[in-house]
């Protein structure tokens, strides 16, 4: 399971990185990278101020 970040919508603020319980996310300059620690919990999706994240189930 993983997530899809819409890079055309993302405002590269890092709020998703701060809430991810497994540390699967990283904010690199203007984009978000996801690694295999993602459990698909959906917390990042809930918190994103712009709604740029979708959980891919």
């Amino acid at each position, binding site marked *: 399971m993983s997530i899809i970040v819409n890079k055309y919508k993302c*405002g590269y603020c*890092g*709020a998703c990185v*701060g*809430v991810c319980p497994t540390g699967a996310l990283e904010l690199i300059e203007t984009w978000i990278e996801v690694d295999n620690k993602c459990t698909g919990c959906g*917390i990042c999706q809930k918190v*994103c101020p*712009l709604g740029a994240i979708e959980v891919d189930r």
Partner: protein
Amino acid sequence: MKNEYDIIVVGAGPAGSITAKTAAEKGLDVLLIEKRQEIGDPIRCAEGVGKYNLQQHIEPDPRWICADVKGSRIFSPDGTMVEMAEEISGGEVGYVLERKIFDRALANESALAGAEVMVKTRATDLIIEGNTVCGIKLMHMGEEYEVRSKIVIGADGMESKVGRWAGINTSVKPEDMETCAQYLVANANIDQEFCYFYLGNEVAPAGYIWLFPKGGNKANVGIGILGSESGEQRAIDLLNDFMEKNMPEARIIEMVVGGVPVSGTIDRTIANGLILVGDAARQSDPITGGGIINAMDAGKMAGEVAVKAIRNGDCSEKGLQEYEDLWRDTIGKEIDNSLVVKETFVNFTDEDLNSLAKSLQNVNFTSMSLMDLLLALFKANKKLLWNLRGLFKDIVKNDIDFKYRT
């Protein structure tokens, strides 16, 4: 870049730059790294700070001050206004900054003090030997390097990873994160000497909308709501609603997003060879969301303790304990108080908020302090605010008067 420094500071926000400056001034060999190519940009901030506290760290400079603020106007859901304004001569108690320039000025100060500064340089992991942090792995222009140090300072902000790499769980729960969106607008048409706050579960569930003057009829118009309230309606949607209804003339010239940790203090901010400061240590205020001053105060403490620890040859957790004690005794106490207030306020209905605001209709505030406001609210609404009695125990018992008049 060398192979080894006394301290490496990760993140050139206010926390990192003040830490680096403090340590470099005392002669330490300091590396300050920032992952972005431009320090301070994009901002994640409404840019409001108290004047007095700021002056403890840096001489105010018109190049990074957009507006002088002398008071706040707070609106309850039914539009009842509570105004707080300082009556001291001159009147201004706060500034609205231009953080892109401010953050860069702070980094510049650390460079002038002797720190080496590198941008577009991202920490990717810690070097840990035994159970001691001995440096970092970093990436600069696509190349990976290892750089060693006696102490690593994690000043990497809300999205901090440094603490996690050292085994300190700094992840924030959705109910402990304010998710925020903000526009810088032209045609703001507000009194440029006031900050405006709008409360209510419809406009901003478990949060508020703010309007901070930015000079020249501009303003930062933003919203923060609790992550647990975000979903169908997100911060950006609620902000757009507010703008449409209340500021149809305003024109957006910049967009800002971000998260503010409002969890209150975390259990540990040090490890062997490691210190966390600022948002990375979750040191922002749970009620206002303000974190610039706390980040700078903590940065100063961290820099001073790092100097001592290195001079004493003990950079273990024990050697760094003084930092933990210092900040918990100052910033930490304020954060604990604010957390009680936050937990009380997030449960209020719109009716509660309206009646709180109405109870202050005849109070004429002459100070802008949050504690003064809370005390006045408490005196008028003891039942509703009973949870906060601990904050005012001494004041109420001894009937000490605060800076407001009825």
